[in-house]
């Protein structure tokens, strides 16, 4: 595949040829193929699915359930019923906390969370701990963004019911050894909840190989439209869990006093489902599969290495986390001496380079690292070398433009 043609798949770059979009960890742009799939759904397959008593509704049901099968294969699950469609990773994680958590957690139980977690994989546990009287503990990381397996083992107690960890940190870009984590947790009788929001779009993920109990991720970070996310859960767990949201489409029998619920996954998908979003997610998976993770990773790794090497040369610029490019998986958070990250982002914006600044929904991590905020550039496979060059040019100019010599 030609190194520089992928941007033409993404209408936003036709509209803004000068845009350097390096905020891919926040959300990705969407290829024409995904927009077409959504339009096609509404033009020729739209009805309320799951009530398929006429052809159009049957089509809608097929679109929706085929997307479920595509997700199953994409993350290597054995059973499509283990795939629950949600709104985003945040809702997926809250679903676990509200459903599994409230039913299974008790006072004196413990929840362990990596300190580098995104608020979406931290606040639901903080909230659950408050509600149940459980204790929330943190696993602290090194400045490099890594954790010691030894300290994970030591932090697990007989009361630790949940360990929540992202597979790739949205600040460091560090990839964590989820498979080893899972082994350690399961030996201790602890459930492992994996936040795949930053990993599923960028590396091949296989839930059976990782042996995680739950995996959460968002469609919009992997080329799909906003409003569709995924929760994978192991069969036996989903089967045992009470429903979360209640309403239409998730019941068997309802009487005045009580109700029995449909089987999973429908038990967890209350109300009219987002079949249009599922169609978009399916098309996104098709796009990613067609390109293939070897190629995706080759492109992203190459650009990461290029940016990393250039950034290291610039005085007063400090990359957060690992000191080799392969520790970053396309995510490079950084600070510039004496310049506030919001000012950094504003100057980048003046040069048409979109990056993010702030705490990246990881305030406890920033406090742990002793920095109030940081700037972050994040790469997708459709970025190219000229994007990195423009990014580096602006980065070099920042301190001068803020009046420093």
């Amino acid at each position, binding site marked *: 595949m030609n190194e520089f043609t992928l941007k033409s798949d993404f209408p936003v770059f036709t509209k803004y040829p000068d845009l350097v979009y390096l905020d891919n960890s926040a959300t990705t742009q969407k290829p024409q193929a995904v927009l077409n799939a959504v339009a096609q759904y509404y033009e020729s397959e739209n009805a309320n699915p799951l009530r398929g008593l006429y052809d159009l509704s049957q089509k809608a049901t097929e679109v929706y359930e085929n997307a479920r099968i595509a997700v199953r294969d994409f993350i290597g699950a054995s059973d499509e019923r283990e795939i629950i469609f949600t709104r985003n990773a945040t809702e997926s994680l809250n679903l676990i906390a509200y459903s599994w958590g409230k039913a299974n957690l008790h006072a004196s139980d413990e929840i362990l969370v990596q300190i580098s977690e995104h608020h979406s994989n931290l606040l639901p546990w903080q909230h659950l701990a408050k509600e149940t009287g459980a204790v929330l503990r943190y696993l602290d990381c090194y400045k490099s963004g890594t954790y010691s397996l030894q300290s994970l083992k030591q932090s697990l107690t007989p009361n630790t019911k949940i360990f929540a960890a992202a597979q790739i940190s949205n600040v460091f870009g560090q990839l964590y050894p989820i498979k080893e984590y899972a082994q350690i947790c399961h030996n201790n009788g602890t459930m492992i909840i994996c936040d795949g929001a930053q990993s599923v779009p960028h590396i091949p993920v296989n839930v059976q190989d990782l042996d995680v109990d739950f995996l959460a991720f968002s469609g919009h970070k992997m080329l799909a439209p906003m409003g569709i996310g995924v929760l994978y859960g192991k069969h036996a767990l989903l089967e045992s869990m009470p429903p979360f949201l209640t309403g239409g489409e998730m019941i068997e029998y309802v009487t005045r006093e009580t109700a029995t619920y449909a089987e999973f996954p429908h038990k967890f998908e209350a109300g009219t489902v987002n079949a249009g979003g599922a169609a978009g997610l399916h098309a996104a998976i098709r796009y990613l599969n067609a390109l293939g993770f070897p190629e995706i990773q080759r492109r992203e790794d190459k650009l990461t290495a290029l940016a990393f090497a250039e950034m290291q040369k610039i005085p007063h610029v400090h990359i957060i986390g690992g000191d080799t490019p392969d520790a970053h998986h396309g995510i490079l958070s950084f600070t510039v001496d004496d310049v506030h990250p919001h*000012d950094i982002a*504003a*100057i980048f914006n*003046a040069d048409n380079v979109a990056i993010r600044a702030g705490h990246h929904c990881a305030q406890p991590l920033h406090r742990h690292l002793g920095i*109030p*905020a940081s700037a972050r550039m994040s790469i997708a496979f459709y970025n190219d070398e000229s994007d990195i060059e423009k990014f580096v040019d602006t980065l070099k100019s920042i301190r001068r433009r803020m*009046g*420093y010599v």
Partner: protein
Amino acid sequence: MSESFYDEVLIDHNLHPQHQHALPTATCSHAGMNPSCGDEITLHLELHDGVISGGSYTGVGCAISQASADIMLDLVIGRTPQEAQHLRELFMKMIAGEINDDELEELEEAGALQNISKMPARVKCAELGWRTLGALLDEAASGNIT
């Protein structure tokens, strides 16, 4: 936004703030913050005989919040609380894009922040000092000096 945003006035006030220091003679202080940015400013004023006779700020934040607070103190020191509140209102009017040329002149260097309204995410940074000033003067007027 265009780069001109970080113009000489802003950069100068950010690099060489006149009023960023402690103020042992302060008669009142007030802390303001901007959660979305992490900006935190504490404003210290010396109020004597119905006049703001001195002032300073401490804290951390982006160039916009820092420079804006510094410019504000340039403007309000030596004025009465009423005059300061009037200037605060003009500043808010400017940010809302509703100011006329005469009013803009009254704001002197603070006019450098006029274009911030094009960058709504940063409006709160520019306003932080002024909002803190308003709260502090309200408290002082009601006798709740801290």
